Every structure is written in C-alpha cells, then in structure tokens.
C-alpha cells in the first residue's frame, strides 16, 4: 500500500476513534450531571439529549472506527489477526459496538421516562446506569489506545512464521 493511502487510513481511524472517545466523555459528563443535580429540569434535559447524542455521534463514530480499523489492518502488513494487539483491539471494538447498540434501547427508555415525567409532573427517574456504562466505555477505549501506541509484541498462530510482518512497511494500524 502506498504511504499516502496508508496515512489517510490512519488519519481516518485515529480521527473516528478519538471522536468516539470524545463523544463518550461528553455523554459521561452529562450523565454525571444528571445523577448529581437536584434540579429535575436539568436531569430531564440530560436524559432527553443522551439518546439523540448516541445516534448522532456514538453509534456512527463507533462503526466508523471499527470499519476503518478493519480496513486498515487488512491492507497493512500488521494484518487483522496476525498480532495479538491488533486482534484484541478488534475484539474490544466489537464488544464496545455491540454493547452500545444494545444500550441505545436503554437510552431510549430513559428518554421516554423523562418525557413522561415532563408531561405528568411526576418524579423524575434517575439511574446510575449511563455513568457506569460511560465510565466502562472510557476504560475500554483507553485500553485500546494504549495497545495502539505501545503495540506489545506477540504473534498469533496466524502470524507466527509469516515473514511479511517483519517487513519495513509496518508504520500502520
């Protein structure tokens, strides 16, 4: 692969991944505010905005990060399953995207409860769930970031003996 194309893919993957991390950080901050505030209007507003924030930023950025990472790995000498750090990042990304897509149902339910609260004037349900899930996602993505930067050694059964991985074109993934 040409260096220019390799760098473009790297920019796409780093950009979408950092964007995903930032979107999670924003969601986590909002979730903490909703949990800590004594102002019901603020709590309701946060619960209403978390779901569209998820669909507008979390889901597309997570899918873009996954897709760009897979494409970049397949086109680079690192491969998708040759090195443990790449394979583990892939599994972590799949887990995070899967949990996120499931969790969007929870955010929809929390938004529905907030709307009902606004309409009826009843008490606002508050849950630590968005904080817990947001914090776990931050930890997961930071672990993936550490793997990307340090690239700890170790080849899988699909990578050992494959001399393409010891070439001079490893500045990717």
């Amino acid at each position: 692969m040409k260096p220019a194309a390799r760098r473009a893919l790297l920019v796409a993957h780093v950009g979408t991944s950092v964007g995903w991390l930032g979107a999670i950080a924003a969601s986590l901050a909002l979730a903490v505010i909703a949990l800590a505030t004594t102002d019901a209007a603020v709590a309701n507003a946060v619960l209403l905005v978390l779901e569209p924030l998820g669909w507008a930023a979390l889901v597309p950025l997570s899918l873009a990060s996954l897709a760009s990472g897979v494409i970049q790995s397949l086109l680079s000498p690192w491969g998708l399953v040759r090195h443990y750090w790449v394979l583990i990042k892939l599994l972590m990304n799949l887990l995070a995207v899967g949990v996120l897509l499931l969790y969007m149902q929870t955010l929809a339910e929390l938004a529905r409860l907030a709307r009902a609260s606004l309409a009826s004037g009843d008490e606002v349900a508050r849950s630590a769930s968005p904080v817990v899930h947001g914090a776990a996602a931050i930890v997961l993505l930071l672990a993936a970031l550490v793997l990307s930067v340090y690239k700890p050694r170790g080849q899988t059964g699909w990578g050992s003996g494959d001399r393409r991985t010891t070439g001079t074109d490893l500045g990717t993934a």
Partner: protein
Amino acid sequence: MSPETPEHRRSRMDNARPGVPRWVKLFAVIGAVIVVLVVVLLLSGHGPSRHGGQGSSASTISLDTRR
C-alpha cells in the same frame, strides 16, 4: 519521544518469543470476566430498557425541586 522506526519494529518482531505473551493472558482473563458478567446481567434481566422503570433501583427526584 522519538518515533519508532520500521527497523526497530522489525527487530522487536524478530525477537518475539514463541508462545502466548503474559499480557495477552491477562487481557484474555479480563475479557472473559467481562463477557461472563455481561451475559449474566443480560440473563438476570438487567438488559436494555430495564433502567429507571417500575421496580428498578433508579432513584427519583421530584419536579417540585425545579427552580
């Protein structure tokens, strides 16, 4: 911090020991615990749309507290 050159990477790859590295085993154990935890939580009814509803552990605040 100087960037790692392809030559350094090649040297590191060539020096890689056979077998599963310790850090991979650590990640595998943590990953297995997380997956088991997720499955148990889903099977125990913690799954999507269960937050904040009737009978949940969600706390509440009254709208009377609005300014």
